[in-house]
């Protein structure tokens, strides 16, 4: 630590770290949904093979693998999953590292891959996210996902993830007048986008009435306010910008990567209507890239529950605190509106295979910035954002992307 007690000038030199520019050169994903016919390894290999083909890469060109999964141990009884993935993808003997941060596991795996390339340690890395959730009962999934919160002081008391977000929703309704109709509008928008995405779990739009009349899970949240139980995998391949140009005519550069942490239990936070970790990660990401929330054309945000998207668009700075419900109702975040939010269908419509979500977000943004998102293409999309949250907000990670 003594080295830091130097002159101001030297301190400045310390923080100007040399980082290489990093870009996405290949992406792939499995269809998201209930895949009784496919196992964990089938899903991740399907996504991995697509990504390698997309980037026109050979296995021997890969230097390392980072994999995000939340609860393979609970859901399929398998730990040590990145060794398994490297084995089945034929990537041995490269280093393969698992990253876990509940629902943000995928986003953190992406950040680990980004740092590995940015640092100069590796030139080309595979980042995967995967979760196989339908091999066990709903009650077991509920318990496993509960592990994203505080086991001893939330889950032990009977809290579930929907109930934790319900506690936030109630406060948001009280403090800002957010309505159940405004929350339902998030679900309607995201299902509409999902219907245009052949990889999405849900292929049909839903109406406001259908959301409002769906069965209550934890008041005020209903089934159609909640992301579903999903099997799925997503993979992106990263390379240094120099190498990226060799593999792809349209590499998508990651221009910022930022992460923050907060208390594990929701009740330990001063406010239940904001995620501080999101606010901090977003601020840092915008600083790194020298852009602002207004510049973002397309964003994949963490809508594990409808109230989560309302808080996300506020915490990311797209709208003022408290105005997220109204903005959604007014169409501010609809496809090709002010900022297109969750064009993939989000966690709500596309599905939420927990560890895969953060990587899937990067796949969707890549397609959008390449102009290859088909029916759900955002016009002239130049700047993209992904926002992935772990638990009730104890982890948040934000990435920014731009066409090279």
């Amino acid at each position, binding site marked *: 630590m003594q080295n830091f007690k130097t002159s101001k000038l030297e301190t400045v030199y310390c923080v100007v770290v040399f980082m290489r520019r990093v870009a996405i050169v290949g992406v792939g994903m499995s269809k998201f949904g209930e895949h009784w016919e496919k196992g964990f390894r089938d899903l991740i290999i399907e996504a991995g093979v697509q990504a390698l083909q997309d980037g026109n890469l050979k296995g021997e060109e890969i230097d390392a693998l980072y994999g995000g999964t939340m609860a393979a141990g609970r859901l399929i009884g398998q730990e040590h999953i990145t060794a398994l993935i490297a084995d089945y993808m034929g990537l041995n003997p490269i280093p393969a590292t698992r990253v876990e941060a509940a629902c943000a596991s995928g986003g953190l795996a992406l950040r680990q891959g980004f740092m590995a390339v940015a640092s100069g340690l590796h030139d080309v890395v595979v980042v995967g996210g995967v979760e196989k959730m339908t091999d066990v009962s709903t009650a077991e999934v509920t*318990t496993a996902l509960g592990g994203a919160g505080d086991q*001893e002081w939330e889950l*032990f008391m*009977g809290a579930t993830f*929907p109930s934790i977000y319900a*506690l936030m929703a109630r406060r948001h309704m*009280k403090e800002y007048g957010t309505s159940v109709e405004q929350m339902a509008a998030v679900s309607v928008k995201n299902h509409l986008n999902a219907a245009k995405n052949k990889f999405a779990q849900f292929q049909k739009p839903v109406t406001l009435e259908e959301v409002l009349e769906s069965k209550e899970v934890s008041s005020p949240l209903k089934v159609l306010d909640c992301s579903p139980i999903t099997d799925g995998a997503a993979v992106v391949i990263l390379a240094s910008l120099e190498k990226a140009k060799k593999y792809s005519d349209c590499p998508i550069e990651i221009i910022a990567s930022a992460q923050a942490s907060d208390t594990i239990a*929701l009740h330990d936070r001063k406010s239940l209507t904001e995620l501080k970790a999101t606010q901090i990660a977003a601020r840092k990401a915008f600083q790194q890239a020298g852009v602002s929330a207004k510049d973002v054309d397309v964003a994949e945000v963490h809508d594990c529950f409808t109230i989560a998207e309302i808080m996300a668009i506020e915490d990311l700075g797209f709208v003022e605190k408290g105005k997220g419900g109204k903005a959604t109702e007014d169409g501010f975040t609809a496809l090709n509106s002010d900022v297109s939010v969750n064009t993939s269908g989000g966690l709500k419509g596309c599905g939420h295979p927990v560890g895969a979500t953060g990587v899937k977000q990067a796949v969707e943004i890549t397609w959008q910035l390449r102009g290859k998102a088909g029916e759900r293409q955002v016009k002239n999309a130049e700047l993209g954002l992904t926002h992935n949250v772990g638990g009730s907000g104890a982890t948040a990670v934000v990435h920014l992307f731009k066409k090279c």
Partner: protein
Amino acid sequence: MKSGSALTWRLIPNRYRLIGSHCETCKENFFPTRPVCPSCRRKGKMVEKKFKGEGKIYSFTTVQVPPEGFELEAPYVLAIVELSEGPRVTAQVVDCSENDLGFGTPVEMVFRKIQEEGKEGLIHYGFKFKIKK
């Protein structure tokens, strides 16, 4: 989640007797016990503190879809309660429906069975709340 008897035994001071921490440096209270004050870090001085078990409803919901071990309890009211000494806790509110609750409703702790691990497993006890008359 099935938990061993050592874990259950270890948490008895917190779950049965409401023991938490008080930081003598910044005067903030914490529940449950924390070895390090998150605000003062190394400058903090943590001592044991027993909480009275009185508080107010800060937020609330009714859980309709329970996790394993709570199947027989659902639906139940779950709340974040702000204790009179400052910290907030997550717990069930018994002998009422959510229609009886509002933000700020005064509640007091009661000692209850929280969950059972099947017919022959451990029975876990701890605190819940009820409306203060």
